[in-house]
């Protein structure tokens, strides 16, 4: 399996966390540790303060929408020991995702959590300044969620009908992968219709 060169084994990290914080770990993997979302701050605290792991820096914080739940992924690293730890918090509540903020442990989470909130709609409890980062307050959706298709579908107005997801997965036209560029079906059909008319005219 692909892993980072200096990445710690997930099992080792999971054992240590389980020893210190009973019940926090929900899943183990060779690369990452899955922890309960409500205890993620304790886990981060533990990893940050522990001598053996010394996770001094929050390298990356992002999130993945798994349709039924969210994963919030923390890439921690120790600069002195030169290793990387991946922690995943599983947020089960897909409707109203909420988990404690990492900001009290890592100041570097300030903007990354805002970004996750802005694009994925996951709220972080205890974040000092949780506002949208790129989009404006009042934007009606969270674009990185998998159920986000287009603004038209969300607002109910027919502004941009029918973005086709994965146009290169088109079974009727396998070559589309090479020269795809037109992902709006309406235009494509119109273009096809025009071409047909032009041919008919000739």
């Amino acid at each position, binding site marked *: 399996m*692909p892993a980072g060169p*200096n990445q710690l084994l997930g099992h080792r990290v999971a054992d240590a966390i389980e020893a210190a914080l009973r019940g926090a770990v929900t899943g183990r993997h060779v690369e990452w540790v899955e922890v309960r979302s409500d205890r993620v701050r304790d886990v981060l605290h533990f990893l940050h303060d522990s001598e053996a792991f010394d996770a001094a820096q929050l390298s*990356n914080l*992002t999130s993945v929408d798994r349709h039924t739940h969210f994963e919030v992924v923390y*890439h921690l690293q120790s*600069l002195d020991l030169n290793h990387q730890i991946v922690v995943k918090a599983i947020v089960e509540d897909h409707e109203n995702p909420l988990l404690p903020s990492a900001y009290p442990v890592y*100041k570097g989470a300030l*903007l990354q959590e805002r970004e996750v909130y802005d694009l994925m709609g996951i709220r972080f409890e205890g974040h000092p300044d949780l506002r949208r980062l790129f989009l404006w307050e009042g934007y009606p959706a969270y674009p990185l969620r998998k159920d986000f298709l287009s603004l038209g579908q969300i607002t109910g107005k027919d502004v941009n009908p029918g973005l086709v997801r994965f146009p*290169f997965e088109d079974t009727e036209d396998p070559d589309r992968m090479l020269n795809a560029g037109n992902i709006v079906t309406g235009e494509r059909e119109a273009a096809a219709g025009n071409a047909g008319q032009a041919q008919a005219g000739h």
Partner: protein
Amino acid sequence: MPARRRQGTNVNSTVEPYVLNIGPQHPSTHGVFRVRVVMDGEVIRDLDMIVGYLHRSMEKLAEERTYTQNIPFTDRADYLAAMSGNLGLALGIERLAGVEVPERASYLRVIFAELQRIASHAMANGTLVSDAGAWQTPLLYMFREREKILDLFEMTCGARLTTNYMRAGGVSFEPPPEFWPALKELVAELPGRIDEYMELLADNEIFLGRTRGIGVITPEDAINGSLVGPALRGSGVPWDLRKAEPYCVYDRFDFDVPVGIRGDVYDRFMCRMMETRESVRILQQAIAQIPAGPHKNDIPLALRPPVGEVYSRVEGPRGEVGFYLVSDGGPAPYRFHLRAPSLINLSLLRELARGASLPDAVVTLGSIDIVVGEIDR
């Protein structure tokens, strides 16, 4: 303060804090970056950054494109260091899909990434000195080298800024024959140029006065605030991914990591300057060592990596450029996340700016070296 306003505020207050809107169109915000600042005279009391003017929803768009189609997005994220972004994504795809890279391609990647680092640092330092008030002269001098580097890019891949050069499995083109003499000439003249800039700026009293002791970041704050790159090294933390987890063939080169002493603007500036020297050293070694061979391995156009995820990172000019790719086995990434050093380096901006004067804050922002394309993505 509007002269026509009839209603006054608190009569007893001796100062009237006011809100100054810096950007999105401002000479020193380096793009469409906007800051709302609460000022008390010349001193900043509070700061709120407003970004998103260049938001293109890259991460969402990437979920609808193949892995190879996503490489151009990295050009447009950090448009001053397109090669580094290309490299990070290419390495990520290779690790995710298990693609092998020919040795020559790795050397070419190193050469272009280091050239890009020199170009980007030239831009960063030039704009920093411009922010400090030297009216564009150092910037234009540094553009001289940047132009030559961009000419090399243009020779090789046809584009100067949005290179789209690195691919999974290698690089897209073999450099043309005239590339190598031009590169050698540039590498030969770069140390002299860097000495010239050091002479012009490193001991300049005004520049020292403007940058020494300004925007100090302690190493603790720098690590905790997820700072990377020159911003981290300027604070005295000797951290460089090229040494920490050597990708490509960086473990074959001999180079040092410049580390600042005080963590102020001047240290960050000098770190960039000296990193340029180290890049020249790497380039010299790479040119000497580069083997013959193919420049790329053929890969399927619609690459379908196995289910899994990868976090690949490279040391870009602004620090750790990370790509978090999640594959569901399809031709497009299930999740594509770009860890943007420009954005995350701004985590400490508010703390740095509070209590600083406006000119100091401008110089501090310049020393952090942001690229708005990468912040907003």
